């Protein structure tokens, strides 16, 4: 299975994702420069965290209109899967590949800490190795991670089971105190209607080896790996 890790000017988690896919997951991976439009030969495209284009105007706004992200729509429509973490999630929302938007943390602080995520939808290529209700431990590192969506969008997200992860306590309770950024309904990660694009604020690549303090993030990449079937398509569950 071939992974592509997109690099924008200002991306900072590209090397981490590349390392995890190559050295921990043992899968072929290459960097994809933001000006490229050719995503052929790839099965999974990763948009890593960072501050693409300095996050000027709005976080992910400029990157969301870049050539590689314009190509991502066709890539996904043709059977590929895409994963955006942190700034990658912001970019996916800005590009319209995912609904809603991410804005300034309610606390106004940059939050760099460990969070617990309760898994709500295990029928996506990114979560099929997980149990419903399973709690994952992963770090966050962001100043603009408050997920915002209007009532109509929120209803649609629920109807199509697009809310994948919510911030929770270590035992899986979704509480206000467990919400690090003020996200609506503690939303930490969502998928598109088809389940083939995942965006989440936490950093799975920073929880992928015991030496990092945990390996829960690796479960997401392992799920993707386990979802690719022989005909080149992805299992939804």
């Amino acid at each position, binding site marked *: 299975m071939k992974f592509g890790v997109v690099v924008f000017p200002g991306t900072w988690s590209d090397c981490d994702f590349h390392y995890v896919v190559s050295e921990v997951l043992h899968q072929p991976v290459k960097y994809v420069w933001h000006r490229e439009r050719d995503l052929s030969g790839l099965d999974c495209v990763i948009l890593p965290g960072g501050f693409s284009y300095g996050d000027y105007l*709005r976080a992910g*706004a*400029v990157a969301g209109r870049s050539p590689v992200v314009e190509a991502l729509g066709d890539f996904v429509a043709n059977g590929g899967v895409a994963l955006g973490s942190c700034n990658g999630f912001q970019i996916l929302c*800005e590009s319209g590949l995912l609904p*809603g938007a991410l*804005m*300034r943390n*309610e606390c106004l602080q940059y939050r760099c800490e460990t969070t617990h995520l309760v898994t709500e939808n295990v029928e996506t290529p990114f979560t099929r190795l997980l149990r419903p209700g399973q709690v994952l431990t992963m770090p966050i590192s962001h100043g603009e991670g408050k997920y915002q*969506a209007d009532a109509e*969008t929120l209803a649609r997200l629920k109807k199509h089971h697009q809310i994948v992860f919510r911030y929770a306590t270590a035992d899986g309770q979704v509480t206000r105190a467990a919400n690090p950024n003020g996200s609506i309904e503690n939303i930490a990660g969502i998928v598109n209607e088809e389940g083939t694009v995942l965006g989440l604020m936490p950093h799975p690549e920073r929880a992928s080896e015991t030496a990092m303090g945990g390996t829960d993030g690796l479960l997401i990449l392992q799920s993707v790996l386990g979802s690719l079937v022989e005909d080149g398509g992805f299992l939804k569950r």
Partner: protein
Amino acid sequence: MRLRVLIRLKPGIMDVQGTAIQRALAGLGFGDVGDLRVGKVIEVDVPGDSVDAARRRVDEMCRKLLVNPILEDYAVEPVVG
């Protein structure tokens, strides 16, 4: 022709920056200040003499990049002088 885009958070979207500034003002003796919200100003030079044509182009810029319609409203006005 120079046009000014005023970008504001939509009503109902919590403005945490505005609230923080309001609190700071209260500490400086401006406790009577009512609602305070923070926005953005973008000024852009567009070639041509027609205000309407320039507005249409800036509207398109707003839709394509300058404004996130999920969070923000905007208004476009010519810059005089």
